[in-house]
């Protein structure tokens, strides 16, 4: 609750401060301070302390799992603002608004981690999405940014429509907006009889959630939107927002998946394989690193879907770890990408000579994304695979997944090759010492989690 209230308030504060303060460079510091306040408020809640007591009439349900995810999302956003705050400022003329919108997105995220009914899910998704439509079009004078924004809005509204339709059908079938409709009373030969409407509604919900987390075959908007949006905001969309989408996805289907019976696993394995295939294979052929990262985010989504497939406790831990590992690494890579003059692979040629620190940090981030041991990404993938193996019965899908993980090494390592093994003089915009230190800290954190994931996960149990 704390996080929802404080993030919404901080959004308003940021908006107003845009009018009050004329100094633009103040905004990022203000936003960072706001995020720290938000973090503290969220942590207070995990110790049972509330800013304001609100009776949510059981529409929201707060548990450690969700609050811990909030912490990850807020910390990731904080790192993002600290690393790329200057670039957010430079995107357009109203920096305060961008930070305000980031806070509103966080408000949506925090609702998504605690919804207890389909209506709140809908609200959360919308509160999270609408600021993103605006952020995508933040670079007003750039035609691609405008196009991406419009595309995102149209496709997003479409999926929202599907979601609403699904919710309506579920309500028609079960008479409730709750996400735990409980076991149906009628049983046919031991198998619970579920209303046809409910199942149809669930499938529609599934489709719209797949759309939000850009799982194939509902991913078509992703590359264009990620490519067209200003790079700083792509970074945010691809990390915090996406992870939150997954969290909501998992929370939604944790209890519902039983209702769909065998259909659920068939549907899900189809989506997983399609996502891994499309994301990985297409990423191989990209020449622009930014576009490659867009496809790679689809591929990573395929891995995160395993959490839904397994649906056990290990998967829950795994999705937290995956969210943290993936967000950290992607924010790191994007922070460097934004500084590059040329977004193509060739633009990275020889970066190790001109900017060794940037190259080192990017390498660690990329190693983490490809899941090499000693980085956080390894344990993220490890938990996903272990969860599915533990759930049992589907070794083949795990094998397919690791083969695609090997494909992903191909495109991630091409960037490393460009930086270290190819000659060239990669050009960057001005790099401050603080930025380098920040990047190294991110890289250090990735290695730390890669050595001792318990650092992160133990916290979850307290």
């Amino acid at each position, binding site marked *: 609750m704390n996080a929802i209230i404080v993030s919404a308030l901080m959004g308003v504060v940021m908006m107003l401060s845009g009018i009050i303060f004329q100094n633009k460079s103040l905004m990022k510091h203000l936003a960072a301070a706001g995020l720290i306040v938000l973090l503290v408020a969220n942590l207070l809640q995990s110790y049972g302390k509330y800013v304001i007591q609100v009776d949510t009439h059981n529409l929201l349900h707060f548990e450690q799992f969700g609050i811990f995810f909030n912490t990850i999302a807020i910390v990731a956003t904080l790192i993002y603002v600290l690393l790329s705050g200057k670039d957010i400022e430079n995107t357009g003329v109203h920096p305060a608004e961008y930070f305000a919108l980031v806070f509103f997105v966080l408000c949506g995220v925090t609702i998504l981690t605690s919804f207890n009914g389909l209506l709140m899910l809908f609200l959360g998704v919308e509160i999270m999405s609408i600021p993103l439509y605006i952020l995508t079009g933040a670079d007003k004078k750039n035609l691609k940014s405008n196009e991406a924004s419009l595309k995102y809005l149209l496709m997003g509204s479409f999926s929202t429509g599907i979601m609403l339709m699904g919710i309506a059908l579920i309500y028609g079938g079960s008479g409730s907006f709750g996400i735990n409709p409980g076991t149906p009373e009628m049983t046919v030969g031991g198998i619970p009889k579920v209303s046809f409407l409910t199942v149809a509604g669930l499938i529609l919900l599934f489709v719209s959630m797949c759309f939000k987390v850009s799982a194939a075959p509902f991913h078509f908007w992703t590359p264009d939107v990620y490519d067209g949006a200003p790079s700083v905001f792509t970074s945010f969309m691809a990390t915090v927002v996406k992870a939150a989408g997954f969290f909501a996805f998992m929370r939604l289907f944790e209890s519902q998946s039983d209702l769909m019976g065998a259909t659920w696993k068939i549907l899900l394995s189809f989506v997983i394989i399609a996502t891994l295939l499309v994301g990985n294979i297409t990423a191989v052929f990209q020449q622009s690193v930014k576009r490659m990262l867009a496809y790679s985010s689809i591929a990573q989504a395929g891995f995160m879907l395993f959490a839904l497939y397994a649906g056990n406790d290990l998967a829950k831990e795994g999705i937290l770890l995956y969210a943290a590992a993936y967000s950290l690494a992607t924010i790191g890579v994007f922070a460097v990408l934004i500084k590059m003059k040329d977004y193509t692979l060739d633009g990275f040629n020889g970066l190790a000579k001109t900017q060794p620190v940037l190259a080192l940090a990017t390498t660690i981030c990329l190693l983490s994304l490809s899941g090499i041991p000693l980085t956080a990404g390894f344990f993220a993938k490890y938990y996903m695979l272990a969860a599915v*193996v533990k759930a049992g019965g589907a070794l083949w899908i795990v094998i397919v997944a690791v083969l695609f993980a090997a494909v992903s*090494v191909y495109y991630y*390592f091409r960037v490393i090759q460009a930086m270290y093994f190819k000659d060239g003089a990669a050009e960057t915009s001005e790099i401050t010492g603080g930025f380098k230190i920040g990047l190294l800290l991110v890289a250090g954190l990735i290695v730390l989690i890669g050595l001792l994931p318990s650092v992160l996960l*133990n916290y979850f149990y307290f």
Partner: protein
Amino acid sequence: MIPLLLISIPLLSGLAVLLLKDSPASKALALVSSIATLALALVAVFSKGALHYDAAWLPALGSRFSLMQDGMAKMLCLLTAISFPVVFAATYNNSYQKSGAFYGLMLLTQAGLMGVFLASDALLFYFFWELALIPVYFLCSIWGGERRIAVTFKFFIYTFIGSLLMLIGILFVYSKTADHSFALESFYHVKLMAKEQAYVFALFFIAFAIKMPIFPLHTWQPDAYEQSPTATTMILSGVMVKMGIYAVIRWLLPMVPDAVSGHAMFVIILSVTGMIYASLIAIRQDDIKRLIAYSSIAHIGLMCAAIFVQNRIGLEGVMIQMFNHGVNVIGLWIVADVIEQQLGTRKMSELGGLAQKAPVLAVLLVLMALANVALPLTNAFVGEFLMFNGLFQYNVWITAIAGISIILAAVYTLNMIQKVFYGQVAEKVTNAVDLSFNTQLALGILVVLVLVMGLYPQPMINLTKDTVDAIFVQR
């Protein structure tokens, strides 16, 4: 404590050397560090019984940082520890750009290799398995030959696919262990049904077969050996391929004995096919490096076959041969490196008459080459004899076919000696000089090892006896 130090000395000194950038001190520091490791490895060899180290690591997952050094691990740690100073000494005059990074990465590789041989926890084993690979990837891609980037990439992807399959195997066995632990003991005691054993066998064996490499998964190897900087190639072929063989003996044999027996014939046929195939290709090679690479595939094939015959004598042969093959192949690479550095070519057709110009080199090479052919009195003879003996007890026909590879080995090895060292003095050879002191020293140490191990192999058999015993007691 010794097992921990064997990993941490190269690890820490490697990180320190990485920070030295271009300083010439990096070379010296790397040499000193590797000699210190060698001293420790010797202490380990002469200490009685298996050495252990154990510390908490990931309690939530049931994984511990536990190391175990029994006879086989002692022997392979010794091989690793000998290889690095010899390699550093032999290539001491080679100069590398960014030498700090080069030697740092080499030492990190050593730490990874030590970890692989010592780990007695499956997850830890997987960690080191990858840790040994990453520095090699950078070593080959930065300092390698012309086609280095593509070739190293192929090597990396190949082995990475293998590793990931092994990871699934580890996870699968882990999910079946009684106490949810990654410990070696738990893995040994896991009860798997026949079908599950077959899956696990396939998942693990592909990873190990790629690393060894076993036909038909060997295609990365000749290219990688040819394109890597020679110092790295020596480690790759001398020590790193032993990872695959070691892993089969340590993890696969005791864990899924039924599946190993069930697939033995299949694996042996693959290995023997690979032996003949690689030997035939080696005959046709003009490049010395490629010749040694293919000859290495043939030797590894024999070792793999001798493991899968699953008798005592064969396994004893493999143990000795793991060490000896490392010594011999590093010796051959050193000679190849000297030739390339001095004459600027590795093509046998452009060489000839080198013996007149460099008599010491010629003598040392001939000794190394004879060991490669497994002539009696050289170290490889003992190992190959035991392995063929084991193979013979298993199946006479297969032994006969595998035996052809001995003849073929003589053909290509002697052919190489003839073309490089005898005949007309070729144009490129005219300004060759004999060996520098450090190379003589390195080759000298190896030659002494070749002869000592050839004449008196018993200590090595005794050293690895406990591992062999343990495997045959369990079955």
